């Protein structure tokens, strides 16, 4: 960011009514970078973007929160103010608590799988960074695939009859048949977690790799000379220095899984037997299948509040590590 320009010293006070050679003004660096621009220029330049974002991201979300205190008595009837009734209904419904449980499993499972794989792959890539360029393209691969396409690919991969996963499992000794992945409540959740992690991992790897690349080699060299083994170096030097990126990845993965709907909807649609009915799915079901929009908004608001807490954590991490969050 720009540093504050040195304060003008001496007789730099602007004299507005003097003759032109007397009109000394302080250096304009403080106000405008380029001398001679109109004051309105930055406003005109930034207004369209700011208005569009405020109108299509900020306003709808606030409107949705406000509407969660209303309800339509019948479909098509005008909404009436009902206070917190939508919320009390939500908290007393079993489906909501069930979806909260599923979300907790989904988020924590994705975090564990995602961070373990992310760190593993980031460390591996760091060793060859800049040398094998095709690996970078491979790493980015899942990032360019839509959630629906990822779901189709994983439904093929995890198909109980011809899926490659089960072929590999059945090839192993002592195993007769692999699980019926998407038909079994437990394994369906596992499949959803892996699909979600697969789509999210590229950004995690890039984030961690970026962090690794900023670590000063002097620290590692020092540890090496002190005789620290590879594992100890990672454990006591690299991981602590990587803490900001790890925390940011954790927060980002939580955000992505907590609010993610695409993968679950396209892969299982919440099934089997609501085994993968996360809160995002529950919101979608309540609003767009049962057409109880205001009730759906209560669920959405609940998720938004959880997510706002996550964002707060994100900002605090940024402050703590002097990180430009």
């Amino acid at each position: 960011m720009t540093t504050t320009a040195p304060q003008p010293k001496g007789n730099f006070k602007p004299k507005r009514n003097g003759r032109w050679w007397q009109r000394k003004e302080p250096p304009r660096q403080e106000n405008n970078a380029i001398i001679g621009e109109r004051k309105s220029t930055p406003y005109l330049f930034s207004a369209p973007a700011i208005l569009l974002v405020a109108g299509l991201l900020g306003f709808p979300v606030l409107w949705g929160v406000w509407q969660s205190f209303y309800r339509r008595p019948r479909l098509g009837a005008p909404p009436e103010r009902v206070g917190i009734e939508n919320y009390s209904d939500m908290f007393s419904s079993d489906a909501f608590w069930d979806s909260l449980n599923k979300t907790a499993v989904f988020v924590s499972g994705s975090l564990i799988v995602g961070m373990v794989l992310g760190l593993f792959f980031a460390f591996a890539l760091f060793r060859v960074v800049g040398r094998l360029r095709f690996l970078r393209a491979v790493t980015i691969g899942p990032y360019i695939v839509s959630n629906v396409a990822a779901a189709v690919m994983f439904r093929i991969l995890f198909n109980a009859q011809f899926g490659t996963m089960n072929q590999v499992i059945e090839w192993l000794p002592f195993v007769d048949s692999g699980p019926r992945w998407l038909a079994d409540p437990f394994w369906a959740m596992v499949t959803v977690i892996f699909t979600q992690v697969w789509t999210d991992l590229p950004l995690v790897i890039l984030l961690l790799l970026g962090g690794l690349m900023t670590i000063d080699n002097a620290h590692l060299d020092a540890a090496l000379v002190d005789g620290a083994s590879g594992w100890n170096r990672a454990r006591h030097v690299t991981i602590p220095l990587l803490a900001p990126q790890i925390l940011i990845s954790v927060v980002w993965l939580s955000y992505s899984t907590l609010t993610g709907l695409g993968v679950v909807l396209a892969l299982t649609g919440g099934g089997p037997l609501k085994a993968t009915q996360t809160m995002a799915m529950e919101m979608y079901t309540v609003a767009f299948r049962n057409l109880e929009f205001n009730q759906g908004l209560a669920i959405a608001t609940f998720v938004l509040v959880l997510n706002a807490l996550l964002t707060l954590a994100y900002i605090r991490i940024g402050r703590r590590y002097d990180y430009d969050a």
Partner: protein
Amino acid sequence: MTDILPPDEIAADTIAEESLQASERDVPGLGLAVGSRAKRLLRSILIAIPLIALVVWTVTPFLVTLSISFKDKVEVFSDPSLIPANPSLNAYTDVLASDSFTTSFTNSVVVGVGTTVLTILLAVPAAYAFARFRFRGRHLLLLFTLLPRLTPSIGLMIPIYRIAIATNMLDKRITLIIVYTAMLLPLGVWLLVGFFQAIPRDIEEAANVDGASLWGRLRHIVVPLAAPAMITVGVLAFREAWNEFTLVLVLVNSPGNRTLPFELYKLQGVEGIADYPIEAAFTVLTIVPFILFYTFVEKHVVAGLISGSGK
């Protein structure tokens, strides 16, 4: 944790390190050399295994899908091998000949190009204002970068759907373009601000003295210098429009306005028994155009992403 060692110890360590390297270099002898070669081999194997795992993890879903797409509907079950015994392009010709693909492909291209153009048109001036001017509202930039995190699409789905109904904007491609642009603008502006700030002010001031107008400077100095960042933003915008699923699901009703992800989602439910080769071929055909487009500009995107995430 930043200062692990006091400075004098670092100095001592560099000496120690130098002597260590020297001692390693100075040791001759065949036995040791073979030992170190074996060690090096082991080392490279240890490095290679995680990298192979990474490739397997990322590529397997693509390969399996590609394999299925060349098989016959029955063959999928009878021939489990990865390389099809008698590969056919039937699934591809079927998909390419279907209305559902051509229509949704056209829609995706229109929405993608529209989003890209609109995002760049709005992001460049805004980022320039944030990077070069001090003005009231400049601190909005921070809010700008945080807003997308506070407004995930799960929170937007219902309100945007209701608002689109109220304003008669439902089921229109232009709605999708505007919504996706709004979703990508914060990231785009943020990436561009960093880039614009890196352009030395002196160049622009020199041009200013030489009589270049604001537009002249933007056109001949800022935009050419920031081209990599603009390409990055463009690709990210295109990707968003090309892949976005949850909002198009609620904003579009009629089959004629669906984008590729929506059409692919519908494809799974329409037929009673899933036609896997068709689904696989459709999936491949949604990914390949983007890969072609992406490999073309890959360098810029990754560089932009890393510089963005490293901040």
